[in-house]
């Protein structure tokens, strides 16, 4: 079933702040096998001019994707999440995410399309810190595959 075009442009309320912790960054860097000390050693981060350790570029996805759950689980939209695959992902960074950030996300539906029976939805997540400074924008394309013909 094609998704409702009227959802294009809809924004959802800002999420409660996610507090970025040093140990969570360290855990993520270890999980991707990245030993760059800027992720684990505050002194190394300071040498690059940061107030604390920074997060790897894709770390913020965990926060924006959780926020996108507001869209995915919106019963009015009616996306069949069991058939969803991740199509594209893009980030534009104003600055790196760093330990101590309290990040809030506003998700907006940028596009809703039907392609070859698949529902395609583009969600933009604008991430701000608690001072209101823009940190990163994340664009996520989700594809809900059409059910196979019986």
């Amino acid at each position: 079933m094609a998704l409702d075009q009227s959802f294009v442009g809809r924004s959802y309320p800002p999420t409660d702040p996610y507090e970025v912790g040093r140990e969570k960054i360290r855990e993520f860097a270890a999980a991707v096998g990245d030993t760059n000390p800027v992720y684990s050693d505050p002194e190394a981060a300071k040498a690059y001019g940061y107030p604390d350790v920074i997060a790897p570029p894709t770390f913020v996805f965990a926060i924006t994707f959780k926020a996108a759950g507001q869209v995915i689980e919106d019963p009015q939209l009616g996306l069949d999440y069991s058939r969803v695959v991740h199509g594209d992902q893009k980030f534009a960074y104003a600055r790196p995410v760093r330990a101590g950030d309290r990040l809030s996300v506003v998700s907006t539906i940028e596009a809703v399309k039907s392609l070859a029976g698949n529902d395609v939805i583009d969600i933009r997540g604008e991430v701000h810190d608690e001072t209101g400074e823009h940190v990163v924008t994340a664009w996520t394309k989700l594809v809900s595959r059409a059910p196979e013909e019986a």
Partner: protein
Amino acid sequence: MAAQIQYADVEVGTELPAASFPVTRATLVQYAGASGDFNPIHWNEKFAKEVGLPDVIAHGMFTMAEAIRVVTDWVGDPGAVVEYGVRFTRPVVVPNDDQGGLIEVTAKVAAKLDDNRVRVDLTAMSAGQKVLGMSRAVVELA
């Protein structure tokens, strides 16, 4: 921002040092915990096959995270990455053996932009197939 590569020292076509990233089932369990993505297609072979996949597959975001390491290792300061985007074209299949899968990443400078920025185009392969498409980063050099 403290990139260790000089804008003046790179040209269109400059190749970044390539790298290969192994991925086993244990890697995926660790990444699931760190990222909070517990979709069973990334750790449950029975479930993955039931939904039509050849085997357990790596998280697309794991592959994306590994690919950008070619850029962040090159430039030194990961905060120099100002844009990064990919298309997930094919899954990285992770067999349940000692070797698992391998993500092989190459990258080169595709364009020199204003403000000391360059566009880097990445290629990520696994088992002979391209796993990321349109994989591009914009990086601010010194």
